[in-house]
């Protein structure tokens, strides 16, 4: 736990946190180890938890027409699955461990409680989540334009 609390103070999302501060975040959740290939959640699942990547690397992917399409890779410090929890919608993609990894898992309720009480953390989490969406939209627009240009 000490190692994790120290590690978490180095994540941009928790800039300014002391180890006592990140220890409280750890106490609100559960640290789990994942072997390569382990699926942490699947597209369409009910969203019951949020993940923070502590070590290793996770892949966010969808399966279409029998094939895996990897959307992004997430390393230490990344939050995963928060949008589905906050919006109350099913998972929009699946997540699996690419390497041996560890995550901090907050239940839906614990995550909401953290954000409700901590104005600073909620501001950071929302701003990160919205930035991800805006980036995705931009890249979608770029892809559409590229497809139109080539056709």
């Amino acid at each position: 736990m000490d190692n994790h609390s120290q590690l978490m103070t180095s994540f941009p999302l928790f800039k300014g946190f002391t180890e006592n501060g990140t220890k409280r975040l750890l106490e609100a959740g559960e640290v789990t180890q994942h072997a390569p290939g382990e699926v942490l959640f699947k597209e369409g699942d009910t969203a019951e938890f949020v993940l923070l990547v502590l070590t290793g690397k996770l892949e966010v992917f969808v399966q279409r027409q029998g094939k895996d399409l990897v959307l992004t890779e997430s390393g230490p410090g990344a939050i995963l699955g928060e949008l589905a929890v906050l919006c109350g919608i099913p998972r929009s993609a699946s997540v699996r461990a690419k390497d041996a990894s560890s995550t901090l898992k907050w239940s839906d309720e614990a995550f909401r409680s953290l954000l409700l009480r901590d104005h600073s953390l909620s501001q950071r989490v929302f701003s990160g989540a919205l930035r991800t969406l805006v980036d995705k939209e931009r890249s979608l627009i770029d892809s559409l334009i590229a497809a139109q240009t080539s056709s």
Partner: protein
Amino acid sequence: MSFLDNLIGDPKYQSNPPRQPAEVADVDIVSPDTRRENRIPPGQSRTKKWPVLDAHGTPEVDLATWSFAVDGLVDNPLQWSLDEFMQLPAVKVYADFHCVTRWSRLDNVWGGVATKEIAKLVGIKPEAKFVLALAYDYGWTTNVPIEYFLNEDSLFAWSHDGQPIPPEHGGPVRLIIPQLYAWKSAKWVKGVRFLEHDQAGYWEEGGYHMRGVPWGPGDGERFRWS
């Protein structure tokens, strides 16, 4: 919400515009920030309500065993029961109240004992530069530079607008430091510790500002990451 609803539903609702300090009778100290032409700090909005925010909910505080202790870098560490504490010389302070979550409640009259009075009784050692306020809610703390703690308008308050401070707002006694964001005004305070070196309190351990002046730079000293 109608006037009647406000009256029935929220006795602390402020139907009128904030008074000017000169219009407020029967106070001993006027917080200097209430004399500003614009009393709303950057990035803040006025609320007419009195919202309730805390880290863990309202704790059960037993008034019979309540005590307030001062320790750390002082000549005479002291402890008071609630009765004894409320016998200390009282002052009334007119002040505004600025929450880091971006609301400001203007026009408050706090009654209690001035922090300067407590400092006089315990005798602060010259090496004390910071204060850690300790609270009844599960070890909650907050840190304050000693000069802000000792501001003339800082006090340990047991009344608000002439009424006892309700439990959800930090009663029986809360710290009030009008010139800093309101999380520094510890609810359910049970003591203070004088320190040579700054020590992060509960929210400060989560990246909140070590000082917390609402008036800038930028839109105020809110967080250590922004």
